[in-house]
């Protein structure tokens, strides 16, 4: 045992990577494994290049090319045509609304189960359910909401029995901005709960006590301690939820193939049948989606790194 420990210590020098390169190698096997090392990471790199970097790079190139392959900015300019601009605007609004409301409700629910004094089993049940519901998206989610708030849905029918028809002109419609937003919240809220729960657990009881000792009210505690500590996490998760909704398509497509003029559905139609009649414009549409999602995710990653220092 002792000898193995010594070997481990000597080989696991302060900087493992450079150690192998600079130090005279006490063990032959390290030198012999160089080829094996490369082979170990080769499949990953090959996959990354063939199925992530090249396809996306190809779309980027095409977004800036005319049909003949010459450089152009026309495709990007084409994104501001009314139909495409409207699609981006609706997508952004739905993503922002479902993200913001999902974050708010998710935060309140996480606070309720962690700091609201509810029985522990409820907290556990909510966390387990969140794991399932955050993955319950796409086609089946659309079916569930059709059965609930569609024209023949449970709530619609029940309210009708009470004399309230929600499907009147100007009333409720599942195939509308608010309908899709409410549906998306079904996976946004659980995702928020899952991500924010560790941050709320990280808020120590002592902070409450310290604030109370200094004479702070509950409201003042949240105003000056709670929200400022959670703020980076909230902002970060918000951008993650935004990107999550922005790329989603299956739910909206299953609710109605055509009712929603959102970017992913427009892109879906473009891939299927070149509805825009312009290959370059299609690529530009995809690049536009990447840029918006990337921006949202960069905010998330940057903010999360900053937030982590509070959660020791």
């Amino acid at each position, binding site marked *: 045992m002792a000898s193995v420990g010594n070997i481990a210590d000597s080989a696991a020098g302060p900087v493992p990577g450079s150690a192998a390169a600079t130090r005279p190698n006490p063990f032959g096997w390290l030198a012999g494994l160089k080829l094996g090392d490369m082979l*170990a990471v080769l499949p990953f790199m090959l996959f990354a290049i063939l199925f992530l970097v090249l396809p996306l790079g*190809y779309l980027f190139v095409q977004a800036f090319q005319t049909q003949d392959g010459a450089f152009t900015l026309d495709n990007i300019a084409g994104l501001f045509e009314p139909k495409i601009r409207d699609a981006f605007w609706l997508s952004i609004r739905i993503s922002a609304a479902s993200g913001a409301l999902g974050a708010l409700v998710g935060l309140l629910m996480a606070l*309720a189960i962690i700091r*609201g004094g509810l029985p522990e089993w409820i907290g556990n049940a*909510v966390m387990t359910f969140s794991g399932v519901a955050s993955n319950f998206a796409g086609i089946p989610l659309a*079916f*569930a909401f059709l059965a609930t708030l569609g024209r023949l849905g449970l709530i619609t029918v029940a309210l009708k029995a009470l004399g309230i028809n929600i499907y009147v002109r100007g009333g409720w419609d599942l195939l509308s901005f608010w309908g899709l937003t409410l549906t998306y919240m*079904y996976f946004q809220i659980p995702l928020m709960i899952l991500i924010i729960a560790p941050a709320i657990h990280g808020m120590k009881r002592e902070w409450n006590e310290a604030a109370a000792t200094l004479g702070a009210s509950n409201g003042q505690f949240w105003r000056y301690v709670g929200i400022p500590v959670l703020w980076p996490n909230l902002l970060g998760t918000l951008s993650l939820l935004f990107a999550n909704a922005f790329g989603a398509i299956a739910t909206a497509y299953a609710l109605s193939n055509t009712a929603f003029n959102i970017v992913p559905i427009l892109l879906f139609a473009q*891939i299927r049948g070149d509805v825009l009649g312009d290959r370059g414009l299609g690529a530009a549409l995809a690049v536009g989606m990447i840029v918006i999602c990337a921006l949202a995710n960069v905010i998330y990653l940057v903010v999360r790194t900053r937030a982590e220092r509070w959660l020791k």
Partner: protein
Amino acid sequence: MKRNKTWAWIVFAIGASYFLLPLLATIKFSLEIRKAGWTLDAYTNVFADPRFQQTFGYSLLVGLCTVVVGLLIVVPAAYYVRLRAPQLRPIIEFVTLLPLIVPAIVLVFGYIRLYNSSSLLPLTNSNLGTATLLTFAYVALGLPYMYRAVDTGLRTIDVQTLTEAATIMGANQVQVITQVIFPNIIVAVLSGAFLTLAIVIGEFTIASLLNQQVFGVYMQNVGANRAYEPAALSIISFILTWGAMGMIAFLGRFAPKTAPRT
């Protein structure tokens, strides 16, 4: 503290009704296929449908291939990065984050443009080629979860010592990974596998655009043509997702609790 508790109960009640009502409504709807009374006919119809069996079997097969290919790609790379090349970590982690940043529909759009019938590598020309493309697309979708699961598993074992011990006893590098490292992180690997399966089984966008008859595409077809069967499919999907998550929670009990080094 009394007032405190009341608001928590109110929030919980609102949340619970938002989450449970659609499930109850879907269950009720799925039982109402006959005018007289509740029956399980919608479920029997689904299970008896040969297209359900075909598409579900195919989705399962693609899902398993996805897990195997994903492991072949991720395990050696994560092991190597942890053992000898921490300087590669930022690159690898960035790559594993890409599928979260890039929407699935954009990814498949890139595949279709790059691997269409007139390209250098025309994968979409044959059924096998398209199925391969679908599998790799799913590997990409699962990559963030698979990598994180494997990396977490590697963090809980002493990779360095295990590797040296095995090497001294004459194991080559393939043997080290397959016979020493892999069995030690099997719990973490299985969690990643079940999460990947949960994501892949009902996937619609990518498969639909690659014209692959998978479970997600079948569900969409049924949704467009039937009234009660979609509700039954929705409940079946929910139970499947629950099963996958339950397996992950169950496996979590067997995960080693020690964390010798990070």
